[in-house]
């Protein structure tokens, strides 16, 4: 394709998974209407989950999942060496995700509970950026394919993409969802970064903060207002810790 007098290149992309549920990788195969075009715009050279051929020569590496074992640290370092652009895909890769909940427990005891006297190797969960340098982070549990597409487009053609700076509420309101606070339920929407189109408030769950904090989230006032509504610090902290994105902002 040629535009503005410039020929565009087809970047070689690779996808790797660490500790996670692979839901984010599944999203890469979603949005069926544009999947063929997506696969045409990039050259997938390494994506074990869907392809048995592989190569170490790639431009963009997507890494999903958190880091929770020594071999993952090694793999990640190799990936970092090969990749021109390393993208952390999903809340696990960006913040540690739900796996981070494990860090609250004694790992030896956890091991004993699950594996009895045959413990498995495991480390406290870390985000990808806590191990190697990351160029771009796409949060979400799971990520939205639309956002992935836009970021890939951004990487190929330099077309604009900005993560929304505003909180989930704005998108939630645009969906006409009845605010969960009206029915007395907790929601992290006011402090969470939008971009997901607010499915969880619409589903009656309220937002659980999977995308991490919005730009300059007003956590202080948020806490005041949810306290006034009868929610306790424990409840709020529990919710804010769920996906690992709010470290440092917890009550």
């Amino acid at each position, binding site marked *: *394709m040629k535009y*503005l007098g410039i020929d565009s290149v087809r970047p070689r992309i690779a996808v790797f998974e660490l500790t996670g549920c692979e839901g984010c990788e599944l999203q890469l195969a979603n949005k069926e209407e*544009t999947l063929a075009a997506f696969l045409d715009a990039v050259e997938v050279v390494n994506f074990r989950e869907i392809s048995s051929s592989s190569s170490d020569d790639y431009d963009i590496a997507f890494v999903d999942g958190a880091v929770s074992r020594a071999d993952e640290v090694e793999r990640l370092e190799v990936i970092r060496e090969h990749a021109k652009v390393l993208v952390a895909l999903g809340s696990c890769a960006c913040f540690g995700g739900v796996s981070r909940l494990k860090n609250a427990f004694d790992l030896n005891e956890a091991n004993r509970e699950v594996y009895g006297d045959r413990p498995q190797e495991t480390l406290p969960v870390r985000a990808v950026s806590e191990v190697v340098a990351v160029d771009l982070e796409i949060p979400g549990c799971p990520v939205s394919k639309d956002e992935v597409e836009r970021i890939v487009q951004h990487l190929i053609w330099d077309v*604009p993409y900005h993560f929304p700076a505003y909180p989930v509420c704005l998108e939630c309101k645009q969906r006409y969802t009845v605010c969960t606070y009206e*029915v007395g339920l907790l929601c992290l929407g006011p402090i969470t970064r939008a971009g997901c189109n607010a499915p969880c408030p619409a589903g009656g769950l309220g937002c659980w903060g999977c995308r991490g904090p919005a*730009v300059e989230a007003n956590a202080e006032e948020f806490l005041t*207002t949810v306290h006034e509504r009868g929610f306790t610090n424990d409840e709020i902290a529990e919710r804010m810790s769920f996906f690992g994105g709010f470290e440092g902002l917890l009550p």
Partner: protein
Amino acid sequence: MLFRILSRDRFRTLVETIMETTEVVAPKKVGVRSDGEPIHQFLPVADFDEMDLAHETTEHSAKTYFLPYRENLSTYAFSDDDWQQEVHYRIQPRAMVGLHACDINALLRLDKVFVRDHFPSPYYVSRRRNTLIIGIDHEPCEGGFCRSLGTDTVTRGFDLYLTDLGDRYFVAVGSDHGFDLLNQVGVAEISDRDTADYLEERKRIAGLFTTEVAVQNLPNLLDIEFESEVWKTWGAKCLGCGSCAMVCPTCYCYGTTERVSMDFSSGSKEKHLYACTVVDFAEVAGGHNFRPDRSTRLKYRYYHQHRGFVEAHDEPKCVGCNRCGRACLTGINPLDVIHDLQAEDEA
């Protein structure tokens, strides 16, 4: 203005006839608050009984049917290192039933910006002209201060406007289109008794509007209290979530973004409504932000409502529906903010 009497049955016939060919949007009950109060929204209805015209207010205004939250402004087809632009306007007719006076007054204010001001917007004009509006008289909503803004009554901007007289509606006819529709279902001329009942009902309703806030001095006051602590106090509470602007019937500011298709064969320029309280509203390339703190951003929301708009269009942009006040989780609402400013001024 012409007035007619429409029986309840005929009104049902009227709406049902419209529904046969045209999308009808009306207040619909969508949930129940923890305190047991129903929640209403303007939504498409497929059936007369899905409408709830006894609604106190709707959580969102009817704005999105005229200024959609997201709207495609133009599309581009790319090929051979070149592009062609295409622009389309919505021409799908729609009827909106159950708008209150404030909602219609809000449209009249938007008309000033998008129809009568410089650079009228064909997108807005086509939606407005393709929308039939049937309004209805009502009792005041909680916290609404429309009376102070003169928006508790309305005399234009609709096709039909109903006042419920129990067994029948007293109808103000605002357009030839409305007149034609009435004649198709059959209406009666008004009798003296109808007029008397109507005036009585109007008097009763008018007496119910008691929430007051003085707005006449605001343009000046906002300048005088520009550096006021009031802004810091209220600004600290702002979550920057944009909920106020999303539900407001007259907030219209927006941003544009462009998208391309995954094969770069087409692109579009999309408009999306924005909010002046959002952190990057006034940020420019290089990262400079003209309004870096919450209090300035909040202040400018009021500044636009009650000063800027007044200078440009001789009346405040706000219609006093208090939807923003109800939507704000931290309790920022125009009544209290304005009272505080005025108190500051007197102190």
